[in-house]
């Protein structure tokens, strides 16, 4: 199983890295899905089969398909590819990578410095190299609908508000309404209306 973990971790890291350097958004999306699947494998390996399945069903299967949907609706063509190419400059990566290396330094420091408790005492060795333990779906379900019941309710409220928000934002709006109030339409006269005028009005 340890090899499954190493392979999945490697795939996850490589494919995630590929996500953020892709020019073609669909390819990036495919890499992201691959990354999610490999994270699901990691979940499975560390003894969490339930969330592994959820990761695939909901994350890879439902959330990502929304991205696919949107990309298909936007119908981004070769032009977007060229824009991406234009935006992709070396120096844009400098800052983020610097930040990341600072974080790396933090982590390396934490790894090499001996583990200490806040009080100053050392952790017993068992806490330094912990291993995974299996947690089945039943335990998750019992805890979820027991102590975390309020959390479930809050999550449902969050989802409902997300639903309403998406519905409101995504309602069918004509392009004109983004620009400004549409003047009384008469056949012929609408052609003369300059769109720029409407923008100023708004």
């Amino acid at each position, binding site marked *: 199983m340890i090899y499954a973990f190493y392979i999945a971790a490697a795939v996850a890291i490589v494919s995630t890295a590929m996500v953020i350097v892709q020019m073609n958004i669909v390819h990036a999306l495919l890499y992201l899905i691959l990354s999610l699947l490999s994270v699901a494998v990691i979940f499975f390996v560390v003894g969490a089969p339930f969330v592994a399945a959820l990761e695939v069903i909901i994350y890879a299967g439902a959330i990502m398909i929304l991205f696919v949907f949107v990309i298909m609706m936007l119908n981004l063509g070769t032009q977007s590819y060229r824009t991406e190419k234009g935006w992709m400059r070396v120096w844009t990566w400098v800052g983020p990578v610097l*930040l990341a290396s600072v*974080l790396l*330094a*933090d982590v390396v420091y*934490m790894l090499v410095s001996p583990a200490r408790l806040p009080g100053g005492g050392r952790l017993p060795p068992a806490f330094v190299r912990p291993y995974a333990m299996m947690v089945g779906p039943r335990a998750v379900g019992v805890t979820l609908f027991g102590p975390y019941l309020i959390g479930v309710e809050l999550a449902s409220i969050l989802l409902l508000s997300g639903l309403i928000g998406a519905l409101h934002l995504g309602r069918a709006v004509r392009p004109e309404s983004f620009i400004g109030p549409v003047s009384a339409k008469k056949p012929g006269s609408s052609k003369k209306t300059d769109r720029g005028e409407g923008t100023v009005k708004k």
Partner: protein
Amino acid sequence: MMLPYLWLIPALPFAGFLVLSVLGRRMGNGPAAAVGVGSVGLSALVAILVASSFINAPPPAHVYTQTLWRWISVGGFAPGVMLYLDSLSLIMVLVVTVVGFLIHLYSAEFMAADDGYSRFFAYMNLFVGSMLVLVLAGNLLFLYLGWEGVGLCSYLLIGFWYREPENGAAAIKAFVVTRVGDTALAIGLFLIFINLGTLDIQRMMNLAALHWRPGGALPTIAAALLLGGAIGKSAQLPLQTWLPDAMAGPTPVSALIHAATMVTAGVYLIARTNVLFTMAPAVQIAVAVIGAATLLVSGMSALVQHDIKRVLAYSTISQIGYMFVALGVGAWSAAIFHFMTHAFFKALLFLGAGAVIAGLGGEHDIFRMGGLRRQMPLAFWCFLAGACSLSALPLVTAGFYSKGLILSSAWEAGRAGFWLWAAAIAGALLTSIYTFRLVFIVFFGEAKAKISKKPGPRAAIPLVILAFLSVAGGFVNFPAFFGIKGSMFFSRFLASALPSATYAAPLPETDLLLEAVAAIVSLAGIYVAYFFFLSSPEYSREMAGTAIGKVLKRFWFEDWGFDWLYEKTLAAPYRWLARTNRNDAVDLFYSFIAKVNMFFHYGLSLSQTGKVRFYAAVIALGAVVTITIAVFAR
């Protein structure tokens, strides 16, 4: 058994208030009057039935309590909405509802031409409800609710004709001055609760008797604070200045609130918490002294007023002073008796004055009236009955019996008793003089104006009933020396709720002598009034023309300069302070903070580039820095 329906008595006026305040604008005058008068009338009916039930089949220990629901429960503090009915509160309830009903009935006609007809009845109903809460309350917090409720209604009704700025000013003055007393009362409640752990009146008094040493500091302070509340509400020295100004309200309001009921709430409060006052002899003496001083001071002020209602207002203050004297000497039932008769005759006087004022088209100045005896016979005879009762005309009036009881109680009250009695008898002389000055100037002499309107049936009936009560109301308490069967019925009835007088009742012979003196003084006063204001008014003019007379008249007219004093010592310094501090010194500090904020605001707004990625970068930077600090600073 009607006792379980006790809650209906305050509930009915409140229901009327609700209906009127919600629907008042939409219903016409007729329905509004029906609701306003009807609710109080029904309440009075229930009160009478409850009273008969209470008298015929007294509940155990002559006390009936009804806990409607628990109000709040915080820690150990759980005051219930509890009604407490004993003979004292029964008397109060009867007076409030019956007199209240009569005045409502009178108002139905008196206010007929007014714009705010339904509003008026809404306020009045709210007042009656609050007053009933006050008198029926079983614990001090609930009592305080009613106390503030009546204060609110008083404010609303004094300023009823709010389009005149002076009325608003009078309302505010009444509110602010009574607030001084109310604050003292609130502090007193806190003190009692902290030390005794309860606000239930009976429990409180039992505990006080158990734990507190008579004459000790705690009962003295507690009683003094309660007295402060009573002084404010009952317009006693030195907080009496609001009451004459309160006459800005409609006349039925003056009759109901500022004569018959609300202003006597202080008397009720002291009588209700009598144990506390008995345990604080110093405060009790203070009550008596305040009462005596008040009755003299306001009696003299009443002597020189021009406004018919102001005369009656000072008279009210003076009569409440009598009640305070009675309370101060421990003659609890005498105070309540006088409260009852006073409610009858003072309401009658106000309503009669109202009839006169309405008849003359809103004229208040007594020197522009005159000779109304023939033009308004009904109003005259009723007013005369009230005046006789107020002047304690011997034997035939209620005032004679109640005032006589107070006088004889004062006489018996130890060493100070003589001086209290002397003040009271001097006050009685003043009372008859100013009362009959009013009668002679207004109703006798030559007619100076034509009346435009006579009281109709709805106004006449209350007048007649109240006139009857003013005359016959005293017969419930014949003095013992008459030797009539059933004498002192009223006092014996009250004995279940109030301890009998602290001092031994005077011997019948002494009592008879005292009553005789009082009767002579009363008649002498009437004669003085007749001499100076009817038969030879030039003497009074001459007296007022002398230097000392001028000063005295001015002094008394201005209520002994209390308003001037308060203006100079309190209001003016406060205004000066407010003016000087117009640009609030404390504000400097806050505006400094605001300036600092503005500085940072403009500084930070530079970072608002609108670039989402910039924001994200800054957030990430901040997070990384925080994490780094957390990691390396471990």
